[in-house]
């Protein structure tokens, strides 16, 4: 890891979805209800690193990813790219930002226009951003296909003629066509079979090494996150509860939630039974986030302070940053 300025910095990012209030509510002047998806996310991405993001379903991982590429207009907090605030941008600036910060989506089926051939998809990307003069575009398309290990005749095919893994490669090729610096990969491989997953992950790691990409890797599969990430962030109900070097978070998680989460992943060793009892209770609704530490309802270590005060991320020696009142004792 480098010790220069981080490439991307996220400060206290919040994002709340407003629910559609019924008319009666409007008339009775009831306060609108919000789904509080992101509640103050702080993180940074160093050039060339992979940051893994894990958390339960619905904790806001995808929302974070979408906020980062500007799919959701910023609500609270800041996103700094190369020390520049990326919010309040003009369309041209937004376009340039997107060229440099690209995203790939979970669903290989839906992230490609079913009516455009791979060639057309890449051609469009290259010509809209004027990445190459018109005449050089066909060559560049071939190059890109080579880069993601797709046969060249793939250019003439429609997405439905590919397998899931190949489709994800097409999506990767599309993202790479504009030569971005950051790739946001939201559940890039979740929809794929294990063996295909491995192919795509290999490709991603290889590209990162070759092109010096910075990657935000969101995934369900903890083993995979551990495998690809330099650092890992654990999110619970829209807040980061623990973030740190992949090794340390996985081998010795501190936050009770990280512990439960990481330990719940079943090992493929039949004799390696987990010792930590599963979490009890359900994930609270993001419309109604408990006060204090959002995790206190399910936490075996919760005390009075957890119910009162929201813990902040704090650096712990030998670990990463942890947002827990009892981190010192648990660490």
């Amino acid at each position, binding site marked *: 890891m480098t010790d220069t300025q981080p490439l991307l910095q996220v400060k206290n990012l919040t994002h709340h979805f407003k629910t559609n209030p019924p008319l009666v509510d409007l008339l009775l002047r009831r306060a609108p209800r919000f789904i509080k998806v992101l509640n103050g996310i702080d993180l940074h991405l160093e050039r060339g690193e992979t940051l893994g993001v894990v958390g339960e379903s619905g904790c806001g991982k995808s929302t974070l990813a*979408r906020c980062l*590429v*500007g*799919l959701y207009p910023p609500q609270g907090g800041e996103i700094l790219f190369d020390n520049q605030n990326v919010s309040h941008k003009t*369309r041209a600036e*937004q*376009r*340039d930002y*997107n*060229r440099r910060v*690209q*995203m790939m*989506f*979970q*669903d290989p*089926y*839906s*992230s*490609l*226009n*079913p*009516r*455009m*051939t791979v*060639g*057309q998809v890449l*051609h*469009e*990307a290259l010509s*809209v*951003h004027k990445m190459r003069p018109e005449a050089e575009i*066909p060559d560049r*398309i071939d190059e890109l296909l080579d880069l993601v290990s797709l046969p*060249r005749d793939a*250019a*003439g095919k*429609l*997405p*439905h*003629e590919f397998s899931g893994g190949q489709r994800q490669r097409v*999506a990767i090729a*599309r993202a790479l066509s*504009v030569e971005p610096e950051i790739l946001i990969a939201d559940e890039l491989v979740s929809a794929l079979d294990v063996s295909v997953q491995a192919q795509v992950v290999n490709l991603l790691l290889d590209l990162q090494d070759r092109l010096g990409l910075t990657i935000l890797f969101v995934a369900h599969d903890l083993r995979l996150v551990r495998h690809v990430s330099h650092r890992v962030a654990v999110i619970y109900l829209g807040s980061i509860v623990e973030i740190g070097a992949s090794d340390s978070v996985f081998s010795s998680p501190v936050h009770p939630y990280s512990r439960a989460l990481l330990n719940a992943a079943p090992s493929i060793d039949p004799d390696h039974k987990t010792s930590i009892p599963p979490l009890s209770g359900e994930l609270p609704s993001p419309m109604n986030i408990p006060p204090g530490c959002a995790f206190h309802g399910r936490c075996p270590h919760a005390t009075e302070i957890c119910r009162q005060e929201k813990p902040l991320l704090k650096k712990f020696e030998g670990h990463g940053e942890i947002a827990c009142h009892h981190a010192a004792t648990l660490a």
Partner: protein
Amino acid sequence: MTDASLARKKRFSFFKRLQGLQPGFIAGLTILGFSLILATFPAFFAPYDPNVFDFTALQSPPTALHLFGTDNLGRDTLSRVIWAYSVNMQMAFLATIFSLITGVLVGAVVGYYRGVADIIFGRCVDAIITFPFLVLVIAVVAVLGPGLINMYIAITLVGWVYYARLMRAEIMAQMANDYASAGKVMGYSDSRIIFRHLLPNAITPVIVYWMTDMALAILLGSSLGYLGLGAQPPEAEWGVLIAEGRNFITTAWWLSLMPGIAIVITGFGFSLVGDGIADLLRPRG
């Protein structure tokens, strides 16, 4: 690979699909094909001038001379039915095409941007669909006066809403797919995303609806003709022909039966083609 060869590739797969067509679709295409030919060259196929009175053959039943018989003025029913093809096919197209275009554009934009435009649109739609279609069309025809052109205007004024509603819903459904988001992330302009990416994928049900709507337009146009609000006599139009013939339904059954059959067959053709297109355009995979 060049664009041309890409295009060729694409068309090739389209033809490949054509091979596995349903017999119903082929039947529908055949019906519509014939209808179009008759509509384009009515003078070629019609044995007589559709409007000339023939006092020697008043209300003649079908004979070799007059295959579909003649009406009470001695006009040849076959010729009138054939000439009506051009009116009715034109009706099917003109009464719907502007609705289609407007509806698609409005629906796409509203579905894409949502927000205030969508709310206003929603209210308008609510208000308009609160009227029975025919009631509103008749009211508009009453405002503009009877006649084909006014009928087209009336149908368009009301009809675009249905297209827009469908288009809006489809666009919103397509927006749920990540390729729309991907387009935004790729930094594409809104118009490119709407018209290059979303529209081609969202249009299928609209096109299918268009087919049924063309059949409906013929039915509606005939109904209006029948009520005296659509095509005006002596113009040969199926609804008008039926209206003219209905006085003689017991004595000269061919007058209303023949145009009736023409309507049913043509409508059938449109429906079959609509179903077929739905099949054809459904993306595989």
